Structures are given as C-alpha cells and as structure tokens.
C-alpha cells in the first residue's frame, strides 16, 4: 500500500530514488563542508538551508510531475521568451551572490534570489524539443541545424555576458544532446562543433594548420551531401574562429585567462590562481583509497579548500570518503544518466525523448566540468554539481527537471 503510494508519487521510482539518495548524500557533504576549525556562519548552516530547499524541491516535483505533457508543449514558447527576457533583465538588474559575487547571475526578488539561467536551461530544452519534435524528418543538413543553434545560442550568449561560462557550457551540452537524439548524423554534429575546436586549437599554429587540412579533406569528401554554401560557411567559420582566438583571449578577464593557464600548468601561480586547483588535488589525493573520514578532512577543516560547499564539494567527498566514495558517487551519477537514456529509448513521443536528452545533456556537462575541474581535467569554471552542491535555485530546477523527465516518460501511450 505504502509502496504503491510511493510509486504513484514518484512516477519513476528508479530515477527519483537515485536522485533523492544523491540529494541527501549532498546534504550530508554540505554539512561536513561546514565543519571547519574556524567555523563560518555561511557554511555552518548551509546544510539546513539545503534541506529546506529540498523540501521546496519535493513540493515542486510533486506539482510539476502532475502536469500533463501537452501543457508543457503549450507553455514552451511563452516560457522560452520569458526566460530570454529574464536573462536579458539579469544583465541590467542582476546581482552577484555569495562566492560568485562577481557574476551577475541572480535576480533579487526581495524574499528570494533567483538564478534565471537555471530556469532558462529547462525552457531551452523544452523549446528545442518542441521545435525538433514537430519536424517530420531528422536534421540532415547544416541548414537544418541553424534554427536549433539559434534557439540554444540566444540564452547562451546572454549568460556569457553575465559572464557565466559554466551555464554557457550547459547550453552547448543541451544543444548537442537534443540534436543527437533528434537523429542528426554524428558527422554533422562534428561540423557544427568544428569552429569551437578550431578556436581551441588555434593557440598552436601548427596543430591548427593540421586540423584545418583535415577539415578541408573532410568537406571535400562530403561535398555531395552538403550544399556549397554550407561547406563554405563551415570553412569560413573555422577560419574566423582561428583568427579571432587571440583577440578573444585578450578580451577575457584576467581571472579567466588565469584559470585556463593554471589548467594547463597548476604550478604557474601556486599562491594565486593555481592555488584552488592545487589545494583541491591535494585534498582529493590525500584522501587516498578510503578517505580521512566523514567531517575529518584537514584540507577542508583548515580552510585550504576553496568553495568547499559549492563548486568544490567533490573535493570534500574525495578527501573524506576516498576513492571508494568518489567512485560510488560517480556510479550513482552513471545510473541516473543511464536511467534517462533508457527512458528516452522507450519514449514513443519524439518530444518526450528530446526533453529527456536535453536534461541529460545539461547534467552530463555539469558532472564532467564540475568533477573534472577538481582533479585538473577541465579548467576551473564556476559550475555546480547537480543534487550535491549547495545552491537553492539549482537544486530546485534540477528537481523540476527530474519531474519533467518522469512525467514525459510516464505519459507514453
């Protein structure tokens, strides 16, 4: 009886169960992150605030998961427009908050501060799913990718202006995940990604030249599948990306440049920008196989670890629970993502599958970038870990996404 009640409430017990476990684990780690030798009021009570947010998120989940699928489709376009307006407004009336004080990504409503970017992610997923799901055929040419790219690109540019690089990456993840599920051929996705690759590779002229030769051969081989205009645009886009790389680099803020330099070599500036990465890796590495014990991490307790309860929460896990803890957490994430893939696979309705993949795309980017930066795989970016990092809006919107995913999968005929 109770079991049936839970099943009725959760809709998808597997997904919701895994996410709930992860969220509660996150609350525990946020509690631990607040156990410092020299406690600060910001971090000490964070776990309780996170619990309150979890309660709000569960209510939101309950409500959102009762909304019929069609309603989502109806509100998609107004929701997307509203989200873009909110993002634009953030640029004007936004405020920084807490550890991300330099980034104007919050809208202060007086009683609560709200991050429009989190809402915009969901709105963009829905908009993309609506657009691609309503098309008769899968995107077959680059021209077919232009509209989806614009739908994702508009909020992306707006969050970049805040500047919030982490959220921008999430929009890219959404775009590619949704396009992939829409049946876009992988080589087309590669072409779409090619200007970005060119941008990164242009820092070494030799490598960039080699890449460019490969690209031209590729375009030549696929010449019959592409319009000439498309080939030329890809060519020009790559050339442009390679050329603007240096001016773009110079336009980055010093701290952003530093983060990339430090990613390439943490020893560049061990007291400054490299400090966070070095201390994070020391925390994780010194955790060893079994960790120093819950709440007992010295790097964290003695405040060597930056942003312990938000962006670097995974370093706390690594230090206190060791490799076993980090591996189990990763497995939990893997199970959640795998569950999303299965749900999408079973969804007959293209809209449902696309929404689920959009959500999967955001989370995968968040997981990879957030966890990767704590061990030096990715440059340090202010991006939270879904369900684990402290942060109200993010937790709420992640749970709303869970609700949406559960609902769309449930409504399958």
């Amino acid at each position: 009886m109770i079991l049936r009640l839970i099943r009725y409430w959760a809709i998808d017990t597997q997904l919701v169960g895994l996410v709930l476990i992860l969220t509660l684990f996150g609350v525990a780690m946020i509690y631990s992150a607040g156990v410092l030798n020299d406690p600060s009021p910001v971090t000490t009570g964070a776990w309780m605030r996170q619990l309150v947010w979890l309660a709000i998120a569960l209510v939101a989940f309950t409500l959102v998961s009762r909304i019929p699928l069609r309603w989502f489709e109806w509100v998609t376009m107004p929701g997307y427009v509203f989200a873009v307006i909110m993002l634009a407004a953030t640029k004007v009336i936004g405020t920084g908050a807490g550890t991300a004080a330099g980034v104007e990504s919050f809208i202060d409503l007086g009683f609560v501060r709200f991050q429009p970017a989190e809402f915009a992610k969901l709105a963009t997923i829905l908009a993309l799913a609506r657009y691609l799901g309503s098309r008769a055929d899968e995107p077959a040419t680059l021209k077919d990718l232009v509209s989806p790219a614009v739908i994702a690109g508009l909020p992306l540019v707006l969050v970049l202006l805040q500047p919030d690089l982490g959220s921008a990456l999430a929009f890219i993840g959404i775009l590619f995940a949704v396009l992939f599920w829409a049946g876009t051929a992988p080589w087309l996705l590669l072409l779409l990604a090619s200007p970005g690759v060119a941008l990164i590779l242009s820092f070494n002229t030799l490598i960039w030249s080699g890449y460019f030769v490969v690209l031209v051969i590729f375009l030549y081989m696929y010449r019959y599948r592409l319009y000439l205009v498309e080939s030329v645009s890809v060519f020009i886009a790559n050339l442009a990306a390679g050329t603007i790389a240096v001016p773009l680099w110079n336009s980055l803020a010093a701290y952003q440049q530093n983060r990339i330099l430090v990613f390439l070599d943490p020893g560049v500036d061990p007291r400054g920008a490299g400090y966070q990465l070095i201390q994070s890796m020391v925390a994780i590495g010194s955790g060893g196989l079994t960790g120093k014990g819950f709440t007992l991490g010295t790097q964290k307790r003695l405040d060597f670890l930056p942003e312990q309860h938000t962006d670097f929460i995974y370093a706390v896990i690594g230090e206190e629970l060791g490799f076993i803890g980090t591996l189990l957490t990763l497995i939990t994430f893997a199970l959640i993502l795998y569950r999303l893939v299965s749900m999408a696979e079973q969804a007959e309705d293209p809209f449902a599958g696309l929404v689920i993949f959009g959500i999967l795309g955001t989370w995968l980017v968040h997981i990879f970038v957030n966890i990767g930066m704590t061990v030096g795989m990715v440059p340090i970016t202010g991006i939270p870990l879904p369900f684990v990092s402290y942060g109200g809006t993010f937790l709420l919107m992640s749970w709303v996404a869970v609700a949406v995913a559960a609902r769309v999968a449930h409504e399958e005929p």
Partner: protein
Amino acid sequence: MKAHHPHRRRVRAKFATGIIGLVLGAIAFQFFRVQVLQSSDYKLQSESNRLRPLPTPAPRGTIYDRNGLIIADNIPGYAVYVLAAPRDSMKVSLRRLQPILDLSDPRIEVLEGRIRRNLPLLVDVDADLDAVAALKERSNEFPGIYIEMRPKRRYRSGAAIGHALGFVSEIAADELATPRFTEYEQGMLIGKAGIERQYEELLQGTRGVRILEVDATGRLVGSFAGREENPSLPGEDVHLNLDLPLMEWIHSIFPDSMRGAVVALDPADGAVLALYSAPTMNPNDFVGGIETDLWNELSSDHRQPLFNRAVLGRYAPASIWKLATAGIALDAGVVGPTEVMPVPCTGGITILGQYKRCWNPDGHGFLDLAGAIANSCNVYFYQLGVRIGLDRMLDAGTRLGFSRRCGIDLPEENPGVFPQDRNFWVDVFGYRPLEGEVLSLAIGQGPNDQTPLKMAQFYTALARDGSAPAPRLLKGTDPTDSWRLELSRLAIEELRKGMRGVTSPGGTAYFGTALEHWEVIGKTGSGQNPQDPERPHAWFAGMAGPWGGEPEIVVVVLVEFGESGSRMAAPIAAKTVDFYLRRKYGIPIDTIQTLAEHYAAGVPAPWARQ
C-alpha cells in the same frame, strides 16, 4: 519519423550510453590516478600544508664561578612569533603588534626585511609579561601570532661581569654567513662577546622542534603549545675560574669617574680570578635585543663602555716594564742578582753617546737590582739595557710573547706591540734603529704597548718560579701557551725584594698598599700617552700573599689618566687582593683596608710598620 523508430532509438541509446560511460570512466580513471597511485605525494603535501615546524631554543648552559656561584642562568621569557603567511598579511600582523610590543618604526622595517616564505618570524625574543598577557587575552584578534615560552638569559651580577662574560643576542646576518655558524638559524640567540662567545657551542645546546598546526590563513589550530617533536637538549654548564664576589667587589671600588682595567690571576695555575674593565656595561641590557636609545648612548659614549680594556686596551707599560728588563737580564746572565751597577745614578747618565736623565734629578747613587726596582731608577736600567743589547732585548721580549696573544680563552685579545727585530723600525718608522733604542725599551718606553692582561701574565712568572702559564677563564683546562724565564731562586727573591721596596715604609706605594693581614709587593708606573701628556695612565702591577709566604694572587691595575700609580692604581690593587685573600682565609671583610684608608678614617692601625 524514421528517426524515432524504436530500432533507431535503440542504436542511439547505445551510442549515448557509450559516451556517458567514456566520460564518467575517464573521470573515474583520473580519480584512481590521483587517489590511489599518487596518493602518498598528496598526503605529504597535505601534511606540510597544515603542519609548521617551529624550532625551539634549548636552555643555555649555566655559567658558574670558581665558588660554584651562578654567574649566568636562565629565567622564563616569552618570545612572540608571526607564523608564516603571505608577506602582506605578515606585515599587517606586525603593524598590529607594534603598539602592544612597543616596537619602533625602524625595528618594524628591520623585521619586514626578515620576512621569509614558510618561516615563522621572530618579532620579539623577550616580550614584557604585560604585552604577553594582552596578546593571550585577545588571541583571536591576532591570528597567526604565536607566543612561546623560552628561556631567557639572566646575568645575576649585571654590570660587574659585563666585559668578561659578554652577552647573548640575536644572531646577525653576517654571522650566519660564517662557517662557524652554518648550523645556526635566524632568530637564534648566540653569545656575542666574552665567555658567552668563546664557549658558544658548549652553552648553546641542541634545538628542539615543535610542530604547530595551522589553517590556510596561518592561524594556529589545536593546542596553543603545539606538539613537541624533538625536545631540546640544554646546553652544557660552564665552570669558570672567575671569582664572582671579587668581580663585584672590584666593580664597587673602582672609581666611577675613571676608566681602566683590573686583572687578577692565581699564580698557582694562571686562573683568571678577575677581569674587569671600566666603564662597564650591563649584559642584561642586551638580552632580547638592546633598545636603540641605549645602544646609541653606549656606542657613542666617548668613554667607550663597550671596550674591554683588560684584554683589548693597549698602553705603554712604563715603569712596570722594568721588571721585564730585569727578568730578561737575569735570564740572559748579564747581571748578577745582587750586583751593584758600576756607574751610580747622579740624576742622569751619558750613555751610548747621549745624556739620559733619571726621573729624580738628585740621583739614586749606587744601586743593586732590588734598589733600582724600589727606586725605579732609570740610570740603572739604561745600563742594564745596554748590557742586554738591542737584539737580545727584542728576541727575549718576543719570546715572552709581548707581541703575541697570551692565549686567554676569550674571542678577542690584543697581541700588544713589541718589535720582533730591527726591521720593525724600518717597517714602521722608516729608519734602521741604532743600539740606543734599547734605552727607551729598558724603561718601558719606545715602541712597546701592552694590555693589562699581558702584564698580569708576566708578573705571574715573578710570583712563581719564572714560568708563566697562559691565563685561563675556564676551570680545569690546561694552558695551551706558556713560557718560562730561567731565574734562580735568588734572582726571584731579589726581584721581589725590589718590589717590596715600593710597598714598604719609605716606598712610594706604602700607604696605599699596606694591609693588616697580607704583604703586597709590586711596581707602579706612569704611562705617557699622546692624548693627555699632563695626565699619564696609572699602573700598578704586583702580587700578594700572607706575610712571609708565597704570593697567592697577582694583580694588575690600570687607570687611564690616573696620573699616579701609587696613589690611584696601587690602592685599587691592594683592596682587590685584600678582599680575595680575606675570603680565602675566612677573615671578615672590612671596607677600611689600606693604611691610607685607616688614616683617612681615623681608625688606628696598630699593625702598621713605620
């Protein structure tokens, strides 16, 4: 909708699963590398992150005098550190400490210059108890500050032993650079002069290490005291030949307004009983860093209170040198102990083609050696000098070490000036000396400057059998340097007879040196000096012991610009030996000691001989 055909969906789902697996697998692999393969490196780094070693100084060895009295020991003191942190926050900490520790602006600048990465900065080696209490009370207002209880040097007699003992102070940068102090570190206290410097390695002990746990801001965590990793090993105790009460006595009797030195040796083994230089300084002022004002005052004082006259001051020995001339002549066999010089003193003599005056224009008549010493007759000693000859005089003087350090165990000693051969004149004055130079040398003039300590060593030979061990401060060590004069018992008796003439009724120093219980014999001198020709330096060199016995203490007193050896220097010497011998024989100390003092105080002296 081909794309959403179940088959196509399955293919894409597999592909997507593969990508997810790849991404998460890569992360898992990286975590495996960092947490399992490289874990030990990171563990080490995490330890060094939070643990800071702080060297803890060992208590310095105690210094005892010959009676077992404590000269220098340790009392608890408090050192204040700023723990290692980024340079700017250490500077901020310093500024905040400034009013509490009463640090001057120049001192702050010095300290700022000493900030080194990863090293705690010693701000104050000896903080006031009030300041320490204030800091401890408000410890959370002062993150990164560490207060350590550390032993602090105390010199019980202060100024009385200042020059002999030296003092301890923070090691200087140029000292750190020398090979002797390679094992030392900044902030350590080391002996800067005197005994403290000489026996630094014995006294220092072995430092310990205290491990402190700090957080990212350098703030201390855990127990305030930290964990003692290696306890420090106290330095060795040092037992000296110095007689502390005697030093204090000399300090109390030496005229405040005068400058000079007193050296007292035990003729039995060359032990240094007293080594005093006036004006003196209080070594306690230097412990924990001397105040700038006081330092400026001391170093700019024209009286040079930081200058140890007993071992560094160089003075023309004048008439007290006549005993050396006599000793050399007897050693060389050019004069018999009781031989009367053929030419009498008539107030002067024509010798080596020049007419030389005696100090007494009336003349002394025919004199033997003892009479010549008692009267300090120049005419006699001119003739004796000629008999010795310039070359033999130079050889003998050099052999007796008058241009060498006598080998006392102190870091600094002036070797004195005495020509080793005739080339000295060529090198210094630019001409070849004639035989006549021996005339000046014979009466303690000419190119001959000696320290009070060196003269005391020479007089030790006269108090013994002609041999002179090097003076030693450390108890129980054998002298490294020594020399001897071949003097017969008769010769020594004759020399002492001469000195007895100085201090007997009729002698110039009788009233100033006559004591109830002891016989003092010696020689006075007036050293001409270029600074003030009107006021020569006053010398007295002599020895004392029970009546009819062997000398038990040798004493040399020099008073700069003291004018009269018999009136200024001799009474100080007499009062010194009286104090020492009375204590040695258990006779109560009396402040009215010499016959002159008895007369001045109106206290009868029935023992006085007339």
